[in-house]
């Protein structure tokens, strides 16, 4: 998908106007292994950029999720409660995690797909 941006902590975002969709990357899900549970915020919660907003629990470990931008949570992917495995099977599609409404500027330090891929090659 064009326009997907990546963070060092392995989240991705897409931006449409003020609305930002957040998920974790394919690399992240492959490192986590089978996801069994997500602890997610309620809508309306305000997050700072870099703030931990939840936990993804895989068979291997519990990992914090970080908000790549400052914003207010508008939608949480309710499907994940019953089907956390969507994070593994479709991390960029049905496995999206939440949508935020930007409250500040978009940070500039995101990576594009090629740069992100390169950054993960040394870690896999």
């Amino acid at each position: 998908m064009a326009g997907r941006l990546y963070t060092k902590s392995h989240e991705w975002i897409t931006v449409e106007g003020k609305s930002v969709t957040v998920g974790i990357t394919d690399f992240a899900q492959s490192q986590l292994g089978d996801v069994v549970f997500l602890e997610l915020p309620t809508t309306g919660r305000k997050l700072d950029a870099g703030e931990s907003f939840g936990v993804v629990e895989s068979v291997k470990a519990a990992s914090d999720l970080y908000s790549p931008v400052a914003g207010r949570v508008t939608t949480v992917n309710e499907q994940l409660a019953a089907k956390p495995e969507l994070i593994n099977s479709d991390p960029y599609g049905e496995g999206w995690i939440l949508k935020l409404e930007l409250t500040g500027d978009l940070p500039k330090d995101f990576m594009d797909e090629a740069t992100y891929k390169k950054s993960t090659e040394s870690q896999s």
Partner: protein
Amino acid sequence: MVDFGGWELPQQYSSIRDEHIAVRTVAGLFDISHMGRFKVTGAGAFDFLQSLLTNDLSRIAEGRAQYNLMCNEEGGILDDLVVYWGDDGFFVVVNASNRERDLDWMRSHAPRAVDVEDRTFELALIALQGPKAEGLMPADGLDDLSYFGFRPAEVAGISALVSRPGYTGEDGFEIFVPADRVAKVWDTILESGAPHGVLPAGLGARDATRLEAALRLYGNDMDESVNPYEAGLGWTVRLDKGEFIGRDALARVKSGGPKRTLVGLKTAPGDIARHGAAVRSQDRQVGSVTSGTHSFFLGHPIALALVEVASLPVGETASVDVRGRQASAEVVQLPFYRGSARSAAGSAKS
């Protein structure tokens, strides 16, 4: 890939969930070549092993294997292992992470006439485990092989030694085959088994299935600070067989009663209690989690915890640390799941 006792092993080949379900419903194929394998030979080999290990080898005979423990003088568990009684000596299969320490320990106690040889790198070891394993083995004449029995067999046309123990709670076979010929055996089992649903299975599925069957993992559920009675493995200690290392200490533990015991915990979906998490009963810490995972097969997380004796009887509600908060845990009967293993010696008696 994850590091496991110095070996690179796959956590999963496809998905832990699918591999786990395959082991429980059809069969999964594990590469367990990382397990340490020693050959113990010489005139005094039997007496040497009897003096080193807690179980009584005179209860088995040539052609059979036995689950066993090696303890230190204080009765702490150095390793859990399986001894195979072969026609030309004994074969001892130990945990990968303990291989070098075990080898040193065994050699330092071995009399001159006994030779302990490390054969880990010559032989590969793979395991087909699942309720349909027997019909899916590309080998003849295994149907009357008993639980913990072993014999030579042609597997996929390759000469191998086939045994029938397991670490999943299911029926199944372990196949010892020369390392340079294991690929053919592996590929044949997978190719012929694929239409039936056989999957290669990684460490994730191995850990989940052994935990459901309440089979202890060395380094997690027990170590030198834990004695066999605390680990629920008192049935492997034969105080009446004669002298062995740790016997006096273990006799004292047995007569006084162990101070701790392993219990099973069941938690709500998402509340995976991890190794080291504190376990409380009425706000008092009574122990900690030794192993925990999500059971895809049972549909909820499960954990083993080492706790004060009698602090958490079956049916009691405990609380356990999960991600910094107190999660409710139900104390349940072990094993969490009883599979198709013919006689689940490891789980049924514990």
